[in-house]
């Protein structure tokens, strides 16, 4: 959303962050970012074990999502950089698209959070054999399924309507990814009982459950001490 006034002053030499903060005028008006001031109002706690998403509230949940998107983007970047042996062109194309979506999700949260964002996380994929199709797609399935359960499980913690809708806009794309990856592994497993319960509902997971899994792929451990989880 650009208005005339924004366009007239947002020259190319304005730093990315300040431009987005300025574009964030619209965000603030829509209730997306609660403050229009440029102060950092959500201190991220850095401990010797890693980082903590901070005090309860929407900024914490957005940082939680940002952490997960960082992880997914890094994973698919590696997949596309070192594709498994014998990868068919169509699978490489699909995985490249997913990489691009995850990168955009990451960049979006980074931009939306601005000074309130957690730092870039260092990943650890040493447990994944990227040369092997089953291992790579198995890890992709774990990331996507976890992502869907994470968004579904954290939705009720979001206070702002615009944030909630944004989470909805992203989670359905993650679910599209999850179904595709499952189908690549086993045709017809797009909504199998490991992820969808007897009521036809996708499983959901708490922040603690999700971060425990995510941290097995992170050198920078992520905690959510105000949501009952501290990294081991």
């Amino acid at each position: 959303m650009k208005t005339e006034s924004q366009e007239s002053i947002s020259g190319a030499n304005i730093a990315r962050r300040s431009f987005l903060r300025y574009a964030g005028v619209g965000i603030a008006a829509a209730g997306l970012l609660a403050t229009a001031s440029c102060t950092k109002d959500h201190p991220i706690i850095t401990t010797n074990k890693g980082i903590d998403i901070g005090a309860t509230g929407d900024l914490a949940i957005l940082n939680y999502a940002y952490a997960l998107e960082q992880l997914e983007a890094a994973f698919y970047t590696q997949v596309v950089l070192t594709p498994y042996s014998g990868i068919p062109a169509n699978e490489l194309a699909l995985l490249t698209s997913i990489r691009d979506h995850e990168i955009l999700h990451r960049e979006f949260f980074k931009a939306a959070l601005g000074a309130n964002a957690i730092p870039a996380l260092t990943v650890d994929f040493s447990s994944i054999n990227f040369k092997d199709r089953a291992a790579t797609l198995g890890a992709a399935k774990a990331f996507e399924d976890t992502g869907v359960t994470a968004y579904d499980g954290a939705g009720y913690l979001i206070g702002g309507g615009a944030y909630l809708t944004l989470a909805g806009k992203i989670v359905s794309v993650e679910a599209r990814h999850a179904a595709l990856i499952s189908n690549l592994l086993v045709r017809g497993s797009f909504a199998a009982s490991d992820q969808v319960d007897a009521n036809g509902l996708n499983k959901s997971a708490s922040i603690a459950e999700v971060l425990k899994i995510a941290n097995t792929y992170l050198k920078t451990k992520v905690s959510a001490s105000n949501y009952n989880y501290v990294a081991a």
Partner: protein
Amino acid sequence: MNLFNIVEEIEKIDPDFSDKVNPRRAAIKNITSFGSKVAMAAVPFAFGTMIKRAVAQTAVPSVVDILNYALTLEYLESGFYNAGVAAPGLIPAADLAYIKDIQDDENNHVTFLTNVIKSVGGTPATAPTVDFTAGNGSGNGPFKGLFTAGNYTSLFLKVALAFEDTGVRAYKGQAENILGNKSKVTADLYKTVLTSALSIHAVEARHASAIRSLLGVTPWITSTASKGNDTGVSLVDGNYDGEQNVTQGGVDVTTLKNASGGSTSVAVATASFDEPLSMSQVLALLVGSFIVK
């Protein structure tokens, strides 16, 4: 006076203000361009009028209303797959289990939503009268023959896809309405209803992805700058209108960096975010065609 702190100031007086105006974001967006054109002194008055209008026009449907709306959509979807699975020779043997999985989920959604509505003291909506040819009861609509053997890919799957992608949009459009009921229900019920809606929403997205794969289109909606619909079925253009949006949370996401450090394409920008539809938009798309008026 900082114009951009107005919302915060109002929230101190009326904590629900953001919730009330969110569905009227279009009006609020105008504040910024407004500020550039009008003398500052005039702004508070204009804004006050805008607030009155915004609040007056925002009637959040009740939890039961939202659940019954979802139930109606699930009746439509389950009825569609029930008819498809029952149609002789329609679904190829290789795809039968695949489609039956979706059929099961949709029927389970009907049962689940019916039970939730009863559990909160509501009366579940009855199944709508449907016409899967989109003929408003004539049986002679543009998708006539969709359950006839030989028309699986050409008609049945295309209607399936429109229903699934529209279902995703419909659930997404109710998230804020459910949030709008937060103060009216217990914390437990709020968590249950919102999480359930998000969880059904995710399953509809899984179905949409799965049907898209059968049709050979991308599992996600890849729009162009001018057209949301990427299915090639122009009859359902309206169901996809708005998917071409690239502005998220006030940010044009095509300006954000892609994998190689350049700007993001419209294809990636639109595929990365699914867009909501309001209750009235969805009903306008379905009633008078698939749902008999």
